[in-house]
């Protein structure tokens, strides 16, 4: 008989092993799914996980991994602080949208001035926009004890309506023949967030993601703030005794994740996406939650997890196009990844005992 026994403390080995095990299980069960669809499972898995890195056209796909992964990593890093401290900001998607809107608006207000000073201004406005949007659930939680999960999630839908309104109204391109969507920010030299080295995929958003990873690593391992975050998550009562102000911590964590999500939105709207359009957001804010957990809320883990998610997106498209796989199968594969991650997480905190064993 199988029995779960709680470990005295979470296993360090399993903390690192579970994500890898989850990936392996996803490959196995994904392979079974693909076989059931009548495809060669090994071929599909190879296409999804290896082709973007090593195929004939990997010179195109590798930079795309950075472009697709950067917003995921940037947002997930911000979320990880809150998640560690038990503060659940589920609305990064909304903060991403508002950051993009504020940043784009700040730039477009100065159109058509030609100066590179505009871009830093937009970056600032983008971060502020995301921060402000995250402050709504943050302040409501601190002042009135509302549930930040619900409020931040609902604000995503508000942000989507705001986005539609902006694309159709205030920010609409006056030269766009009445079609929705703003001016193309990637084609205006003052605001363009182009690749820093051609063909590398490195734009400012990718740079920001790497910087965020480094700062997060230092903050968590070397700074008092990281200690406070960890302590609050592990033992809120002990944290209070240690003199940590829970309200302040909530505001800092919400603000930080909001600002980083806003930055991700700004870098996306000025670069890969290019314009504020009605469906500018494609779910980075939600996928980043998966990335944060897949990366065990650890900065380096998040970096790797962001790369892995980007890989399944890009590899998934290749598999669709070259092997005729339906899009839903790729989404199932990504869903499996999160499912297995949560499922095998049990091994971190419990050990499996076979047989009757002593009474606990």
């Amino acid at each position: 008989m199988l029995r779960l026994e709680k470990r005295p403390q979470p296993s360090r080995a399993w903390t690192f092993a579970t994500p890898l095990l989850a990936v392996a299980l996803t490959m196995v069960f994904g392979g079974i799914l693909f076989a059931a669809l009548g495809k060669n499972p090994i071929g599909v898995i190879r296409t999804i996980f290896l082709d973007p890195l090593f195929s004939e056209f990997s010179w195109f796909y590798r930079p795309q991994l950075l472009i697709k992964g950067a917003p995921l990593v940037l947002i997930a890093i911000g979320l990880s602080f809150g998640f560690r401290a038990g503060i659940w900001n589920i609305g990064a998607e909304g903060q991403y949208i508002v950051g993009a809107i504020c940043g784009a608006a700040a730039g477009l207000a100065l159109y058509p001035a030609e100066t590179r000073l505009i871009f830093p201004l937009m970056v600032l406005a983008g971060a502020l926009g995301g921060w402000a949007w995250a402050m709504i659930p943050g302040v409501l939680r601190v002042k009135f004890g509302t549930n930040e999960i619900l409020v931040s999630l609902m604000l995503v839908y508000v942000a989507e309506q705001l986005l539609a309104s902006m694309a159709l109204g205030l920010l609409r391109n006056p030269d766009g023949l009445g079609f929705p969507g703003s001016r193309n920010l990637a084609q205006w030299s003052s605001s363009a967030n182009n690749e820093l080295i051609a063909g590398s995929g490195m734009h400012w958003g990718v740079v920001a993601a790497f910087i965020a990873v480094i700062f997060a690593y230092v903050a968590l391992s070397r700074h008092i703030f990281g200690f406070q975050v960890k302590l609050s998550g592990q033992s809120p009562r002990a944290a209070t005794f240690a003199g940590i102000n829970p309200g302040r911590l909530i505001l800092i964590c919400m603000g930080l994740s909001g600002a980083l999500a806003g930055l991700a939105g700004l870098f996306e709207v000025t670069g890969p996406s290019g314009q504020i359009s009605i469906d500018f957001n494609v779910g980075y804010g939600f996928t980043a939650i998966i990335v944060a957990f897949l990366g065990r809320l650890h900065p380096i883990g998040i970096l790797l997890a962001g790369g892995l998610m980007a890989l399944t997106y890009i590899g998934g498209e290749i598999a669709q196009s070259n092997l005729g796989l339906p899009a839903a199968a790729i989404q199932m594969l990504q869903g499996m990844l999160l499912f297995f991650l949560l499922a095998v997480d049990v091994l971190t905190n419990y050990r499996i005992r076979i047989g009757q064993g002593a009474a606990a």
Partner: protein
Amino acid sequence: MKLKTLLTSVALAAGLATGAAADGHEKTKVGFVYVGPIGDGGWTYEHHQGLLAVEEEFGDQVETVYVESVPEGADAERVMTQMALEGADLIFTTSFGYMDPTINVAAKFPDVKFEHATGFKRADNVSTYSARFYEGRAVQGHIAGRMTESNIIGYIASFPIPEVVRGINSAYIHASRVNPDVEFKIIWVYTWFDPAKEAEAANVLIEQGADIVLQHTDSTAPQAAAQAAGGVYTFGQASDMAEFGPEPRISSIIDNWAPYYIERTQAVIDGTWVSEDTFDGIDTGMVEIGEISDVVPADVKAEALALIESMRTGEYHPFTGPLNKQDGSAWLAEGEVIGVGDLLGMNFYVEGVSGEIPQ
């Protein structure tokens, strides 16, 4: 700088193209980028029927590839680039929002032909094509105006772009012509495909008294909502949606892309492809009216068939004066037919439609 990537891709594309030309047995590769899933039962479903028709027509001569549910934006650009890299000779990008991505990718692959649906930007290797859906809307409007008892017609609109506005105006003109008391209630859902949102919009319209619901979105959810409510009529959109007949679905507009896709693929095989703008309607069969079900009285059906015939022969245009704009200002004089500019860039309602186009 960027030039290097550009040159690499150009060289690659050129290499692939000449490779195909040198070896006459090389298959022509045709790619399709879809905005929804192929099982949406509407817009994307019909484009996919076009892909299947191309396979059927050319057999081993062509290879087709597609990617479904591609978001409009940076992701679309990547998918198109990937298709072009993997050797596609002709790529159909089947949603309005793919316009800029199509133009961007086409600039990097001058030897690959692109066809963008419902847009207005062309290049030497980018054609545009669209259908005169508003002709079908005229028939819908006519039947709806005659069939409604509450005189309230619900309209699920997707995005406020000229194509959708044209549909609303055309339906309204022909509904109010046979029923001056008719009123349109319009809900903008800002999506082409979202069954939940579409069903919600349909239910709201039905609650507001609409007994006919027209949709410019791609799923069958509004049909199901009408069926559940009972006593409400609908029309299939983009596809026949015949499984909801004979009611609530009493007729449909079918987008038949197959002949066009076959013709353009043939042109690439023959090397006669040139960039052009196609805007076809009932006359060439790109727009079809699905069977008008028996729920529609015989006289109404006869009128509808006559209307279809008059548009097929070209003797009647749905936008023929006298027509005023919503604010009452004169637009088209008696007998005057709409100009191309107004048709393509339509961003105003005709007189009688209430509400505002979201700005």
